């Protein structure tokens, strides 16, 4: 036998107790949707996992109304410390149910269990822990004293990191005192619905988080709903552009996290074995379904052949197959539609004259699969060097000097992330300084931390998620005259100042902000 044909090591599905069908999570309860239900399938086998409710505009109304009620009556009045307690509780429950969530994520999304187990779910817990800590420290969020929450946040998330994107959206929104209506992607609603059960377990007040499922029209109805104060979207640039148009002229705050075509720049003095790992991790992590994926490899021409040779050797050891097998490196492509897109763009790459190399992988009979692929001889004018493929396809380009590397890296309508590989510290700083991208990794790639802000330049979107900046996206400064109230509160003269200032605030805001402020000041006053 061959040792490298590792015996199957499947993670058990027994830990999952899935329902046959899931409703919409509105006002703390699962309710039937009024649209036509749809199925969610496992992209690895094309088997149905469960039926999912479809929210129509009336359901969206109900969800937004529930979020508004929860905001007015409960969440905006609650102290930051108490909000933090709920977030800590959610974080701990995510940890307790980590294996279940990982299995569900791999089943529904197709990503390898080692990634959902070691990356996605631990980061989800980390995100809730991080923002739980912020909930009672909003005065230090960078917006001055007493920043106010925005109200109801409409959040639409993609299918590549279903639960992690949920955490990126919900954790800061709740910490800042907003309530939420979230729509997961049509093909990956499962973990969001299990998360809804976790919210019930955590006894989060009804309506603070509402999760509605459906397709693009549900998302459109949600973001354009008059009752929402904030729109947060992660997904394609096309949809992001449509959302930006839709909310233009309203007073909704918007953050968009869109596509990318990141350059991963390898200089000739790079730590070569680690750079090869970084290239693999950059583009083949999560089947390349990563908006910040390092899909353009810019390698210094004098080491091009060596890097490509080593890369091919390394890719030949990747294991493609059952996402639930603990040894799987490359899982399934999330949907047939996405697989078609990857195939089309790859064919275009070939037609444009780039040389295609595909790792030797056995492709399973059912499901959606695409073996790791490298294109060499790609030019900056090639479509595979410009369009986001969102799959396990790497375009290799070369450069001669740092200046050329920077010029090529920046020559894209996107600007989400970039990578730099060199042993020379001064070069890292000099190059990073000139790259127009939101996140720049040095001698690593695709590393995430809740304390670090994440977001794009240009067509990659605007606004930041993560860190203090991500919190700021869900807050507004206190209205003029109120920012000093916290100091007044300390001296026990708070209440009058707060009430006076609130009277001058816009009607909608005062309705929501006034009780919160009075309560906060009262608490502070009583302590003194």
């Amino acid at each position, binding site marked *: 036998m061959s040792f490298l044909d590792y*015996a199957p*090591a499947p993670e058990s599905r027994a830990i999952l107790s899935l329902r046959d069908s899931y409703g919409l999570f509105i006002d703390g309860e699962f309710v039937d949707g009024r649209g036509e239900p749809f199925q969610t399938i496992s992209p690895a086998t094309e088997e149905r996992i469960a039926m999912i409710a479809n929210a129509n505009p009336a359901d969206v109304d109900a969800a937004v109304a529930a979020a508004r009620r929860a905001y007015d009556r409960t969440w905006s009045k609650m102290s930051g410390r108490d909000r933090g307690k709920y977030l800590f509780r959610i974080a701990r429950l995510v940890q307790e149910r980590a294996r279940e969530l990982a299995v569900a994520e791999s089943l529904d999304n197709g990503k390898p269990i*080692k990634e959902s187990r070691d990356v996605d779910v631990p980061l989800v817990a980390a995100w809730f822990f991080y923002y739980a800590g912020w909930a009672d420290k909003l005065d230090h969020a960078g917006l001055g004293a007493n920043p106010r929450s925005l109200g109801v946040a409409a959040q639409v998330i993609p299918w590549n990191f279903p639960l992690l994107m949920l955490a990126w959206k919900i954790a800061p929104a709740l910490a800042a005192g907003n309530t939420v209506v979230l729509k997961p992607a049509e093909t990956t609603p499962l973990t969001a619905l299990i998360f809804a059960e976790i919210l019930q377990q955590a006894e989060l007040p009804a309506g603070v988080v509402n999760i509605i499922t459906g397709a693009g029209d549900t998302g459109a109805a949600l973001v354009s709903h008059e009752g929402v104060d904030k729109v947060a979207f992660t997904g394609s640039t096309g949809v992001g552009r449509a959302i930006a148009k839709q909310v233009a002229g309203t007073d909704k705050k918007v953050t968009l996290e869109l596509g990318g075509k990141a350059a991963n720049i390898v200089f000739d003095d790079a730590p070569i074995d*680690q750079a090869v790992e970084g290239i693999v991790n950059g583009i083949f992590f999560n089947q390349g379904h990563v908006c910040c994926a390092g899909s353009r490899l810019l390698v210094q021409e004098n080491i091009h052949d060596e890097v490509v040779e080593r890369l091919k050797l390394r890719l030949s050891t990747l294991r493609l197959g059952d996402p639930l097998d*603990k040894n799987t490196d490359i899982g399934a492509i999330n949907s047939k539609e996405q697989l078609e897109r990857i195939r089309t763009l790859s064919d275009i790459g070939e037609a444009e004259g780039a040389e295609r190399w595909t790792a030797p992988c056995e492709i399973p009979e059912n499901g959606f699969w695409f073996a790791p692929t490298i294109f060499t001889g790609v030019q900056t004018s090639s479509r595979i060097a410009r369009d986001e493929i969102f799959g396990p396809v790497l375009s290799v380009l070369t450069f001669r000097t740092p200046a050329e590397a920077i010029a090529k890296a920046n020559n894209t309508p996107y600007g989400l992330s970039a990578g730099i590989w060199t*042993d020379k510290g001064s070069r890292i700083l000099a190059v990073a300084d000139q790259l127009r991208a939101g996140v720049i990794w040095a001698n*690593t790639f695709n590393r995430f931390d809740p304390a670090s802000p994440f977001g794009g330049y240009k067509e990659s979107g605007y606004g930041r998620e993560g860190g203090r900046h991500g919190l700021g996206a869900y807050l507004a400064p206190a209205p003029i005259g109120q920012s000093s109230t916290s100091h007044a509160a300390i001296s026990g003269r708070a209440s009058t100042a707060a009430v006076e200032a609130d009277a001058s605030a816009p009607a909608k805001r005062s309705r929501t902000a006034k009780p919160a402020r009075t309560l906060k000041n009262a608490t502070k006053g009583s302590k003194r």
Partner: protein
Amino acid sequence: MSGTSLVSARERAIAVLGGEPDDATLRRYLHGIAGVDAVGLEQRAAGLGTRSIKTSSKKWALDRIIELIDLTTLEGADTPGKVRSLVAKAVNPDPSDASTPRVAAVCVYGDMVPFAVDALGAAHGDPDDGLISVAAVATAFPSGRASLDIKLADTAEAVAAGADEIDMVIDRGAFLAGRYGLVFDQIAAVKAACARPDGTSASLKVILETGELVTYDNVRRASWLSILAGGDFIKTSTGKVAPAATLPVTLLMLEVVRDWHLATGQRIGVKPAGGIRSSKDAIKYLVTVAETVGEDWLQPHLFRFGASSLLNDVLLQRQKIATGHYSGADYVTID
């Protein structure tokens, strides 16, 4: 077993280096090799450590681990009796299960070689033939702080007494002082001292003592240096310095061996030693070998574990697979 012959090793080094192996040439060469990013290396090693080896793969792996062990005793208190006991364990690791394979070698101090050879008797020979080799540590092990003459005498004596393999230590002081030429010459001289009158030669394992080299860049350079000077194996540690073998260090040395193979077509062995005590850890090493240099390397002439307590943990795991339940420490022999 036949190691690389000395003349070809030196010629080979000159060809690779483009000059005599003196300090300046070696420095130019070794410092021209790409650096190592510690975070990335450790991340990759950790990733390899998450492979899940189950059922038939685990069964195969456990047997193979035994076949790759250099069963070791390196104590000041070693006696002929202790060595005989170790040899008996090497020949018959699990008296309750005759299907248990034998270890690759026993590893002892030079003065214990005659007792090991005597105790092995007919079982002494090449692990490829199901027999057991005798490895001797030499060159003023573990510190290496002695004159070259003493190191060479130490080596020659062990070979004359019947040692099949010599585990030498490099002069870490000379290496850290940048005297690469001196380290090269010493390895080459010890290699020469491994020669037997009949023209064959004992196999040479070069111990880098990575715990004293400290940085991964140093480990990579010392690996290249040892291979260039004619080492048949590169070995992590003496077991007397902490940290001894770690997975990242072993991965790094395997990468050097892989690169050397790509460049020259020659195969060099790797031996992590010290600190590998559990089957679970040892399986991580097998995975790392197979996924870095290839499965071909999982044979006694190309990979060894320097270990003592590892064997018993593997035997317990084997018994568990055979019987379906865990036994306990008293169901395997202490040595």
